[in-house]
């Protein structure tokens, strides 16, 4: 049976880690959404050098491990574990979000851009006010999936002493010498975040599939 005194005696540490996991995931989601949108627009914009920069970023980052990026931001920059980890997660996740947003933009019919341009909007205005708002709807389920991945990947902060849930779990197991039970409780805290998110994304995907 699980030793619940591990949970009750260390509830402060568990909750502190739980909070950090949620905060860093949310910050990284927000930042990678902004960077990802910028990259997606760069890949589509009718300016060749921007296309290249966007493509190189996305293809390079998507194909290397997130841990390599997190270690690099931790060692190369003068940051603490939490900041370095959040920056690393942002750099990595932005590449995936860029692809999701690009797919969303591509799914908006070409005529929308032409119509917007012919009413006198500039390319940037048309993108911001006509195309992106329509693309966002299609992008929400994949964004949800990226957020789930972010929450799971935020556990890498533990490797650079980032103070997240996994890190606190390691501290607790080192203190109590009870690794098995501690990790089970850590797992449950992660599931509290990820299971509702998964169910929500699944629901949205089903609803979108039906409306098509």
């Amino acid at each position, binding site marked *: 049976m699980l030793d619940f005194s591990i949970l009750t005696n260390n509830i402060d540490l568990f909750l502190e880690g739980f909070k950090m996991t949620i905060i860093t995931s949310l910050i990284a989601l927000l930042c990678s959404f902004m960077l990802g949108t910028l990259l997606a627009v760069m890949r589509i914009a009718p300016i060749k050098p921007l296309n290249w920069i966007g493509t190189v970023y996305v*293809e*390079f980052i*998507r*194909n*290397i*491990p*997130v*841990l*390599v990026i997190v*270690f*690099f931001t931790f*060692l*190369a920059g003068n940051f603490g574990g939490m900041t370095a980890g959040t920056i690393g997660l942002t750099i990595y996740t932005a590449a995936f979000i860029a692809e999701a947003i690009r797919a969303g933009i591509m799914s908006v019919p070409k005529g929308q851009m032409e119509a917007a341009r012919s009413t006198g909007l500039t390319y940037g205005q048309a993108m911001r006010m006509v195309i992106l708002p329509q693309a966002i709807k299609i992008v929400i389920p994949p964004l949800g999936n990226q957020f*789930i991945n972010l*929450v*799971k*990947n*935020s*556990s*890498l902060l*533990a*490797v650079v002493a980032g103070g997240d849930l*996994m890190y606190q*779990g*390691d501290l607790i*197991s080192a203190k109590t010498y*009870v*690794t*098995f039970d*501690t*990790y089970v409780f*850590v*797992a449950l805290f*992660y*599931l509290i975040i*990820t*299971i509702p998110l*998964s169910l929500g994304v699944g629901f949205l995907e089903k609803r979108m599939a039906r409306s098509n």
Partner: protein
Amino acid sequence: MDFLAPFIEVYKPDNLKFLLEGFGVTLKVAAISIVLSFIIGGLIGTLRYARIPVVSPLLAVIIETIRNLPLLLIIFFTYFALPEIGIEMEITSAAIAALTVFESAMLAEIIRSGLNSIEKGQIEAGRASGLSYIQTLRYIVMPQALRRMVPPIVSQFISLLKDTSLAVVIALPDLLHNGQIIYAQKGSYVAPVFVIVALMYFIVNFALSQIARRLELK
């Protein structure tokens, strides 16, 4: 030229050979894990698809739980927690076991949705022509579904290659781990090591992703 000096020092044949050895371990662990995950994930995905009472819902709960946990936690758990209940593995086996558990859950979902993408009429036609349910799955549904599953399976293999790097936390001597040993010698080695390590991962994964894309277009 000061900037280039550490690059020249790091990229000497001995170090490159050491990194390639690490990459060999990465590829080996990833390859063994993907084969095991394909077998286990294939079995679980098919059982979930077949909607067997009790078994399929139970598998659904297990798969969803694993898919929603961080892989790092599963690796830590396999190597540090399982010995407490008498299951001890050395580093490579623990890495393969943890990756297989996680990737099996991922592949089970890919395989289930691949099977689901085959129209129900195919099964009815198969059954009507006198084949049993198992025969219909094996000769009619599986061959068509497998073709559709190849691109997502290649993508999953790319994820697995990247995920293998997480096993550095239990000191698996893979590419990232060997890179860490080199940059630990000198502070200025960090950038050169990360450039070459990232490039090695990139070359193999990019090639694989191009294959996946080619297959998707077919």
